[in-house]
């Protein structure tokens, strides 16, 4: 009996059948409001606004790009305190046969943050506090990645550095 009564009652519940068009949103015609920000992921549609030089125009597998021997990126920060520079990248094992161990120098606004050395390939995550007095909020911050020995592609002779997935400043 209860289900029958409920069916009947629920049938009486009044919910609108049709709706008027809602308020129209502004068409999205441009990129994100702040295209240059504190972090870039290579899969983003507007990732290239962060590139100054040394990074491939092509996103591979929708997730990564080759850097050249020297890559330069820009970031815009709204604060300088308690930030860490973080970077996800990979070095293909096959490149070691040609170039041997690889050293990567990471600089922020011209100051060396760290120099990393790798003797084997793999995927890596780097994260290190960025001194606040190296950073600025009133202008772009430049991050430079310098790879001591480029890998020369046997296919087209391109001089390549590392595979970059994402980089930038995080709290």
């Amino acid at each position, binding site marked *: 009996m209860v289900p029958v009564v409920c069916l009947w009652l629920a049938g009486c519940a009044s919910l609108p059948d049709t709706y008027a068009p809602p308020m129209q949103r502004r068409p999205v015609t441009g990129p*994100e409001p702040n295209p240059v920000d504190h972090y870039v992921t290579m899969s983003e549609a507007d990732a290239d606004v962060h590139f100054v030089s040394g990074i491939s125009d092509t996103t591979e597998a929708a997730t990564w790009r080759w850097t050249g021997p020297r890559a330069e990126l820009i970031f815009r920060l709204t604060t300088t305190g308690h930030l860490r520079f973080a970077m996800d990248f990979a070095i293909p094992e096959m490149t070691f046969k040609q170039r041997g161990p690889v050293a990567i120098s990471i600089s922020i606004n011209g100051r060396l943050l760290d120099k990393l050395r790798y003797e084997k390939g793999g995927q890596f995550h780097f994260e290190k506090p960025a001194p606040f007095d190296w950073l600025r909020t009133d202008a772009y911050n430049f991050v430079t990645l310098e790879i001591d020995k480029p890998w020369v592609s046997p296919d087209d002779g391109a001089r390549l550095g590392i595979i970059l997935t994402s980089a930038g400043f995080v709290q």
Partner: protein
Amino acid sequence: MPPAFYILFGAALTVAVAMALGKLLLRALGLKFHRQEEHLFALVTGSACLSLLVFLLATIGVARKGVFQPLGLGIVAVAVWRGAHRSAGAPLAPLAKFWQRLFYAVFGIFTVLYFFNAMAPEMSPDGSTYHLGLVARYLRNHGFERITTNMYANLSQGIEMLYLFAFSIGRHSAAALVHFAFLVTLPLAMLAYARRFGFVEAGVAGALFTFVSPVVGQDGATAYIDTAVACLLFVLFYLLQIWERERTPRLLIPIGLLAGFCYAAKYTAVVGLLYALGFVGWKQLRARQPAIRPLAVVALCALVMIVPWVAKNWIWLGNPFSPFFNSLFPNPYVHISFEKEYVRHMQNYPGLGSHWEIPLEVTVRGTVLCGLLGPLFLLAPVGLLALRHPAGRQLLLAGGLFLLPYFGNIGTRFLIPAVPFVSLAMALALARWKPLAAAFVIAHAVASWPDVVKTYCDRDAWRLAKVPVRQALRIESEESWLTRKSPYYPIARLLDDAAPPGSRILTFSQAPDAYTSREILVAYQSAFNATMGDILWTPLIPEYQPTWQFSFKFPPRPLRKVRVVQTNDGGPDHWSVAELRVFSGEREMPRASRWRLRAHPNPWDVQMAFDNSPVTRWRSWHTLFPGMYVEVDFGRVETIDKVVLECARDQYRIQLKLEAQPPSGEWQALAGEPEEAKLSQPLGLRWAAIDEIKRRGITHLLVYAEDFGADDFRKKAVVWGLTFLGERNRARLYRLD
């Protein structure tokens, strides 16, 4: 007064009021029981009365300590004044010395364990989230409010009404102690039943098999409800057995109330009502006596307990049984797809290789299915030997029926309602060899003690770990203990500290509702929340973005309505439309206010296909079936020649056709196959997504490190338009700017 006083007073007053109401009811009905039974039946039937009373107080908005406390004391005073506290019944058959000592020794030791765990700060996963989260919310509001964003608020909450009474005085632990009261009542009721029906030794063994079972103790020592439900079902069974012998018509009143209270306590416990009706009907028919009147008494009394919960859901949600049966009662608050997914999930816990693993999981391991009964229950099939005994047949029949809901949710604690029956059946079989039965009791008790359990169960099994005396007595403060031990509590503190009152916080995982006054919306817990989640994930998942265009072109025609119909069948795809645009020549027709939009299914979100936002979309929230449509009524005749759909790509199997209604005439097919095109990935999606959920009243995001997209929120907070406010236990709180 020390906090422990309020905890104990809150729980004690709740139990005392329930017992007083029960005594008054049973006395008013002139029912006679044995002395030991009177207290048990009074507590359980009185709980039903108190639960209903609290429901009514919450409905009229006076659910507060200042009402509960004087009302409760008044009820107790009336009961004492009426002499209800004095027992009139004869005692049950005495226990033999050995069995009495065995029972009280084991019962006493485990009661201490359970008591201190129940009194310790509550941090069980469901207790500290929705069970007490909703209770706390009702108390803040002094009653119910229309909640459409939390499906748990739609479940019947009969036990939570008792918790509300206790919580108003002693907060979380007082509520858990009310559950503990049912935990203690259950074995006493089992023993009393066995004593009345003449199998005392089996009663002792069966009661202890249940009581010391690790999952029963763990559940009953928290603000869950499963052990209380088991207690209700057992006492219902017990009363029916008495009724069968005595045929006292008035006994059908508490039976009916209790059967209804089973539903009010938990939907799945409606099996108690079915059992009661079936039992009474069958026994009347076998005795060649009219069944209509007794059945009507049971049904009407049950309805008294059931109707409030059904009516609440019907009035507020349009679905009397929400969050289930949404196909039968379509509503905007719970998606049909969610219900199906939820049911499937409950039947297949992650980590369970096959259903053949269930016996070992629920008895020994305890991680995947959340809790263990103890290795003794590997011998559960022994209970079938009890079929030789009339009481055994009754127990197994009831236990079998109460086991049925388990197949809808295979978590160990969903076995608890059937455990007392299985325990007594096993004990009946074993009691033929009394020393053996006693040995099994002792072995099971030893194997169920926390220090022993941990030697054989999985490391992460859901179980009690120790006797937390210092924490229960608040020698160590609640704040300190919860901060150290609860994964949720520090997050609750973050929410209260960093989000202002009135904040609405969206999150993708369970959150500590019971310890924060901020409103938390968990993405899976309602249709609204799921839509917020869909919007937030659109920037992160390319397949969610509207990059797939369908154009229906045809010679210019005057039309009154057009609709795009989906014609394919089957899952897993849902159909969705980000935008539906209508063209006349090269010009898109502006969406006039006279237009009327309609969709089937899920008509309530149709505006999302007409808002010009790339992050919102109308979704069917239902797997594909022919006849789904999105329709525009122009409100007058318009001449058009093209209809364009912008869709996401996460719907590979959709097949679309266009239909139109000319000024006079029936719906007819228009245009042929649509032309497909690839649109470029829209930009500005993160900002647009935050803008959309802000428009819907969300003020904050709580993102756990394990949540999908957590890294993107962290790294791209500025682009999303989020301000990072703080992090606790790997959960980060952002404010929507």
